[in-house]
């Protein structure tokens, strides 16, 4: 979870995603464009490196003599997504990685920019930054920053199809290389870069939302996504309603949950005395006179049959066996004296 702070361009550090190798990026479906981007051997084609750090220059050294790598393209962490590991893994697939990883210092723009000979192409362009503030700025940069020096040299070390390239300034720019036969003015290039980004992210979304893989077309996929989000929101409401109605009192034991989080869950700790578990008793309690109780105290006498409680909890345990927090709560309540009582 230490990446939780890294979403967006704020930290400007796409480090974890750079570890994704080109192989992973092969998993990126998408069109041929993508594949060309991805395969390190080609090195050519359209490369839209999505660069997060807004202030740093990304330099791509295309010659094989480059000290950092032999590849032409850099891996760029696209989005430093928040800390979900699944998301990380998926977002890492986004990074259009064509080559081996350059050292991180490369992306931070510390590599030898000055030493690069003129015929090497150094592109620095910012990708869309996630911050909305920068969106406008970087759009302007995209337009005016890309020089229209169309260098027709083809890098011999890579089999590129591109006919043009752009020089860059020392600004975080999207590295975009036009493909053969495609328009090379900055507008369309920017648009294409943007579209590629959007398509890449839509792919992630499609994987996330169940049932979206089979759908063709952006609009329908978006439809599905909207439906999914709405259904999730409705589920949250329903669950909160059920929770509110089911029991007026909930005892939670925060300390024990934290403590026993990693521990295994209780098996046989459910004897009558320890079965101070909140819920069945509290439902009872609300029906009769309610009074506070510590969890260790034996239940009121209305429930003489402790044996009944056992099947309850046994059942719960079976239900939630795989479920961390539930069993945690159950376990914790039985294990520890410190409780925080909570009502609802």
């Amino acid at each position, binding site marked *: 979870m230490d990446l939780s702070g890294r979403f967006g361009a704020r930290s400007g550090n796409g480090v974890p995603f750079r570890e994704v190798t080109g192989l992973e990026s092969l998993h990126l479906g998408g069109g041929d464009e993508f594949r060309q981007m991805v395969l390190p051997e080609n090195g050519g084609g359209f490369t839209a490196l999505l660069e997060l750090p807004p202030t740093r220059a990304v330099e791509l050294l295309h010659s094989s003599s480059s000290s950092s790598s032999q590849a032409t393209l850099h891996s760029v962490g696209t989005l430093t997504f928040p800390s*979900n590991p699944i998301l990380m893994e998926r977002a890492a697939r986004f990074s259009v990685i064509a080559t081996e990883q350059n050292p991180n210092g490369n992306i931070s723009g510390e590599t030898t920019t000055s030493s690069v000979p003129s015929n090497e192409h150094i592109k620095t362009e910012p990708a869309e930054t996630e911050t909305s503030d920068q969106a406008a700025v970087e759009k302007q940069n995209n337009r005016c920053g890309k020089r229209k020096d169309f260098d027709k040299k083809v890098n011999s070390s890579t089999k590129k199809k591109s006919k043009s390239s752009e020089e860059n300034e020392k600004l975080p720019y999207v590295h975009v290389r036009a493909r053969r036969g495609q328009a090379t003015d900055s507008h369309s290039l920017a648009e294409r870069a943007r579209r590629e980004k959007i398509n890449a*992210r839509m792919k992630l979304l499609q994987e996330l939302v169940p049932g979206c893989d089979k759908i063709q077309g952006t*609009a329908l996929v978006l439809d599905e996504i909207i439906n999914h*989000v709405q259904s999730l929101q409705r589920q949250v409401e329903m669950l909160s309603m059920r929770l509110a109605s089911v*029991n007026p009192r909930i005892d939670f034991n925060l300390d024990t949950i934290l403590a026993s989080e990693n521990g295994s869950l209780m098996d046989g700790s459910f004897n009558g005395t320890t079965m101070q578990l909140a819920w069945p008793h509290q439902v009872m309690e609300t029906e009769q006179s309610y009074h506070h109780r510590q969890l260790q105290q034996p239940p009121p006498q209305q429930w003489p049959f402790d044996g009944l409680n056992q099947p309850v909890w046994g059942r719960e345990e079976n239900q939630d066996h795989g479920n961390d927090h539930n069993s945690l709560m159950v376990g914790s309540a039985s294990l520890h004296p410190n409780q925080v009582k909570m009502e609802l």
Partner: protein
Amino acid sequence: MKEEFLKKWQMGLQIYRPLIDNTSVSERRKAIKLSADVAMASLRKGTTCWSRALIQKTATEDNFLVRQMLSGIKAETLINKKLPKVMCHRKIVRRSKKILRRRQSRSAIEEVAAKARKLVKKKTQGLRNVVPGGEFMSNDVLLIQETLDYIVSLQTQVNVMRSIVDAAEAGSERTAYYLGKLKFAIEDG
């Protein structure tokens, strides 16, 4: 992820309890939902757009609760972060675009493409309505990113809540059952 959410949510619920003696179901439901939402949004610690927007929204409904929760998790700054962007006035934009487009070519292919684009735009607008803070996201890339993150968070939230509800209901079902049995037995006997 789940554990953190659970912790924060419980903290929030805990805070809520002494504040208001919730007697009505709807109040409790609101409290539960709000605290769950704030807990979920605070997990992101202000890095994502939707989390900030969500906190702002719940703050308008129940400022006190939000403040308490955030102070509980030491993240009071979240409540003040606000997106500086202004919502685009889509009608104005649309009208100006229409004027610009008046003399475009009307070939069949272009019309189809234009319709497809319109449809996509409509859907993205719909997505903005659903995702909290969607109106503030100026570009589609950001929107989709936020949607991704939001969906993931929603799923964890739903999972946690569902498990708690299941456990709670299981407990109460049994006791209700036994209670009924007991009453029955008492009445009979």
